[in-house]
């Protein structure tokens, strides 16, 4: 039994309902108001430090909600390799907060000692499949947990890519044993920016590979969609989401809102809409 389980804290699998991303401005409100959301997700790197208000707030919130830790800094696909110090910090965060899901991205982020602190796209080649699967395997071994790996938003595509993104992700999952985190907004943003077919992406992923879904808003700048997580989920993404859960079944679904962060009530209302879509799916299945 884990430390949290022994205190009656939620520790089972994340329920197939909507959750919200935990952001610093909501730390107090979420502990005080305990909004009706199924679970919370936190960016792992924001809770690396031993002390401080953020770590304390997450410990308090963790007592009330199942937790997913979502990393944005490992850059698993970087050919220079995994920053072992960073990985060790993720491991300490897992030991401390006992998340029931842990995720990262199918991207790279550093080269030649410089970190770009962004989710950079990979070329979809056999070499990149092998490399990323190997790195995910290393991370899973060190962390002692299965990872969910998320598709990223893309603004460019490598001319060397030989695979569809969904083929790439499916192969990485098959080799490494990781699951996939399907970010529906990212699928939409990339498909619009690169002239791809978003529905084909969702149809192409293996049925049993997806363990979590992300929904978020984006903006448009000069005709390019920017994945800024700064607004409501758009109608097209809601429609794609309905397609996704029709294919993969009801899955834990996160509302991500990281910039222009609204009042907690707005975030909760957005998560209620995801729950409504999930409820309609269950109604159809009944």
């Amino acid at each position: 039994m884990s430390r949290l389980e022994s205190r009656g804290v939620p520790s089972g699998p994340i329920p197939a309902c909507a959750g919200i991303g935990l952001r610093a401005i909501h730390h107090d409100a979420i502990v005080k108001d305990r909004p009706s959301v199924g679970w919370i997700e936190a960016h792992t790197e924001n809770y690396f430090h031993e002390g401080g208000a953020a770590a304390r707030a997450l410990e308090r919130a963790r007592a009330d909600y199942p937790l997913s830790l979502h990393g944005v800094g490992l850059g698993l696909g970087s050919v220079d390799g995994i920053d072992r110090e960073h990985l060790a910090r993720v491991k300490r965060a897992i030991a401390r907060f006992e998340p029931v899901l842990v995720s990262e991205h199918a991207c790279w982020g550093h080269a030649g000692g410089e970190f770009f602190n962004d989710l950079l796209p990979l070329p979809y080649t056999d070499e990149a499949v092998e490399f990323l699967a190997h790195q995910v395997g290393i991370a899973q071994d060190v962390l002692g947990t299965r990872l969910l790996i998320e598709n990223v938003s893309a603004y460019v595509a490598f001319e060397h890519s030989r695979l569809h993104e969904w083929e790439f992700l499916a192969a990485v999952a098959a080799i490494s044993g990781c699951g996939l985190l399907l970010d529906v907004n990212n699928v939409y943003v990339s498909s619009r920016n690169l002239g791809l077919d978003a529905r084909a992406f969702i149809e192409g992923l293996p049925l049993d590979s997806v363990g979590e879904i992300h929904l978020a808003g984006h903006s448009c700048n000069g005709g390019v969609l920017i994945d800024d997580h700064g607004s409501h989920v758009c109608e097209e993404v809601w429609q794609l989401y309905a397609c996704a859960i029709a294919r993969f079944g009801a899955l834990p679904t996160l509302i991500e809102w990281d910039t222009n962060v609204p009042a907690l009530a707005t975030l909760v209302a957005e998560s209620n809409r995801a729950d409504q879509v999930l409820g309609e799916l269950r109604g159809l299945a009944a």
Partner: protein
Amino acid sequence: MASLRELQASFAAALRDESSACAVRPRENLSIYRNNAAINFRSALESGFPVLRRRVGDDYFRQLAAQYRQRNPSRSGDLHWVGRDFAAFLAEHLQGTEYAWLADLARLEWSRELAAVAMTRASIGAEVLARFTPEQLEDLVFSLQPSLRLHASDFPIFSIWAANQIDNAPPVDQSLMGECGLVRMRSDYVEVRRLDPFLFSYLSALAAGAPLGEAINTAGLDQDALVHALGFVFTEGLVCAVARARPAPH
């Protein structure tokens, strides 16, 4: 067929230099990644150095951030650390100018960042001293709160920090004396506090691991100041443990 290493190297080069070749399409969208990297870096600096930014204004802060990034690119996937060398950069960059004090302000703000995420340990009261004989007191070494940071500057840096908690604060008179003080985590906020030089000297010696007697001598405390200084570290909750210094070998 280019290797993954070659493709990432060309992408990274194109992020650093827009004229560098990179086999992606649409090529013009590389600017989005270039901007993201710069903005993420700058935003992390802005959140770590709010008073410095307020003092110099947005435009000059952007310039400083860009020049700093050129010299000290991010070395971690955790953006919290990008400000680590900012004060040292400013010290070199502004050496000999009338803005040299900005480096000390940056040091103070970086200490604030570190204090905000430092572990807080349970503090102990002065009654712990009763466990020791009067002769043993001068050999005691104190473990202080991990969040404690001490600063001395040739500039009125604590006054500048305090005055600039609001926008458009009037400039602090730079001809004022230098200042010293502490930064530490309180229960729910980071305290930035100017200290009397004697108290600062005593606290610095204790923090460096000097035994109590040596710290008192270093600070040149008289009897009244000693009572105040000894009481200060306990009443402020700065002491986590007290132990006798290991006797010096004969």
